[in-house]
């Protein structure tokens, strides 16, 4: 049974403070460029479930019609596991919208600050909301 990763709403996100590793991890500004905000829509080509960061490969159709594959960096796959998500839950062909920042080396890589389905429901968000997702 295929499950689509969804969550509704943005309720209840906690931001860490204090000595713990902050969500705004300072090394990410070394890898990604705050001066290069990006937004793209494409389909999932594959998911690399590797530590320290899982990568989602997204095929994006450019204005000239060619396909460019973007590699989107997300968090640790161990977190996905603990939430009951498996590799097969984000199947190839799933349409996603990604906003984030491009890699500083100018290649087709970005961090996935927000990864959403086309209807706006967000993947990888902290809690469920009142409109529970359907399969």
């Amino acid at each position, binding site marked *: 049974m295929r499950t689509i*990763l*969804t*969550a509704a709403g*943005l309720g*209840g*996100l*906690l*931001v860490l*403070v*204090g*000595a*713990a*590793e*902050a*969500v*705004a*991890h*300072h*090394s990410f*500004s*070394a*890898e*990604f*460029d*705050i*001066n*290069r*905000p*990006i937004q793209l829509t494409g389909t999932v080509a594959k998911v*690399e479930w*590797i*530590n*320290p*960061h899982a990568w989602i490969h997204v095929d994006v159709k450019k*204005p000239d019609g060619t396909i460019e594959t*973007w590699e989107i*960096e997300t*968090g*640790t796959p*161990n*977190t996905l*596991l*603990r*939430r*009951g*998500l498996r590799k097969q839950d984000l199947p190839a062909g799933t349409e996603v919208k990604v*906003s984030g920042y*491009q*890699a*500083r*080396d100018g290649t087709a890589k970005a*961090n*996935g*600050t927000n990864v*959403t389905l086309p209807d706006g429901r967000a993947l*990888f*968000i*902290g*809690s*469920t909301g009142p409109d529970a997702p359907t399969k």
Partner: protein
Amino acid sequence: MRLRFLIAAGSLVVAGVTVWLAEAVVAGQAPSGTTPFKVPASTYAPPKTPWGDPDLQGVWDNHTTVPMQRPANLAGKKTFTDAELAARARSRDDNDPLCNQNDERCAKATVAELDRLNAYNGFWTPQTFVSDSRTALIEDPPDGSIPPLTPEALAIQQAYLRAHPATEPSAAVIEIRHWEDYDLAERCIAAQVPTTTMGYNSAQYLMQSPGWVMLAHERLNTRIIPLDGRPHLGGTMGGWIGDSRGHWEGNTLVVETTSYTNKQSGGSVGAFADAGIRFGNFHVVERFVPVGPNRIQYYVTISDPQTWTRPWTFMQPWEKDRVLSYNDNLGATKAEPYQMYEYACHEGNNAMGNSLRGTLQARQRAASRPADAESTKSLIGKTAADIRAMYGNPVTIAGPRWQYSTANGILQFFAFFENGKVVLVRPDDIRLTEVVPNR
């Protein structure tokens, strides 16, 4: 007081004589006038392993939001009340800068909150923490501050930060030009020992066998601690995580660690020591004090008269086999005991190469940016009406941030407003003509 164990030849049964100590005084060199810190006693007696040691085995979690040092605005306040803790939890809920476009939450966001390179959002970090009402992890000195560095250690640290500016925690320019600009954990080599909380993947599996304790940290470190009284390795043979020797004092596990490498590194996730500190002369004593069936109070005393003017002690509560409640994004709440998974850090470390290549590229790009007058940088100071006249209505508005698209369709353009005027643009180095008007 050290305790010695008799090890019967040909058998792995350890027989020992234990003396219950009412208090344990932490060894360390204290300047005259400083009272050595006393770890509070615990009357809880855990079950025993078959060979007679206290049994502390299991997966221990130390996720916390308590900072290492007491914030200045809480000076003198050691703990929060229950009401204060509840209010803090609520304010964390509200304090989410990662609004989606057109979300009402964004209306309250400031420019600084929106102009942040968060790697990804709070989904990836656990949302529950080991209960702790304190305002700081440091127990000694009582003011909750790390003691001052000695002049020699400060000079060494400053030289290190000059050579590796990216490791300075508040560095304005994060430019990784050499792999040593990243800290030990980002290099996938080790985490500092002792380790404080990491934002996620912060558990440790405590395993015991006759004569040994093994601590498998979820990320990077496996510590193997013999209990048979053998001497330390000496020198720097302990490497990055030092060389540990353990013994039991009643039900408390006491671990002494020395022989660290004298190489320096950055501050690191889960670090207790900042960037540029040399560990080679450290003497670390950890005390694992069981206070309940699923709770340990973990005290760490660090002594190094070459580095700090006096020893200091921090404490973190650890909880065992936590049943973590997750919203699984599918409408269900799951609860299951914490399972550690493999953390193959080095194998997937693309960030290092990406960052180094990023610096090479960024320097080349900076050399060929358009003149300010022709670039988006010239939009700073313009009014909302000016921007509308040039580009039409923004594609989306998120609080103070207006968004437009650019010629390649993927790169976006942001203009941030304060008091009706543009105060910041991203990117600030593309041609004005690259921003696509939204008509």
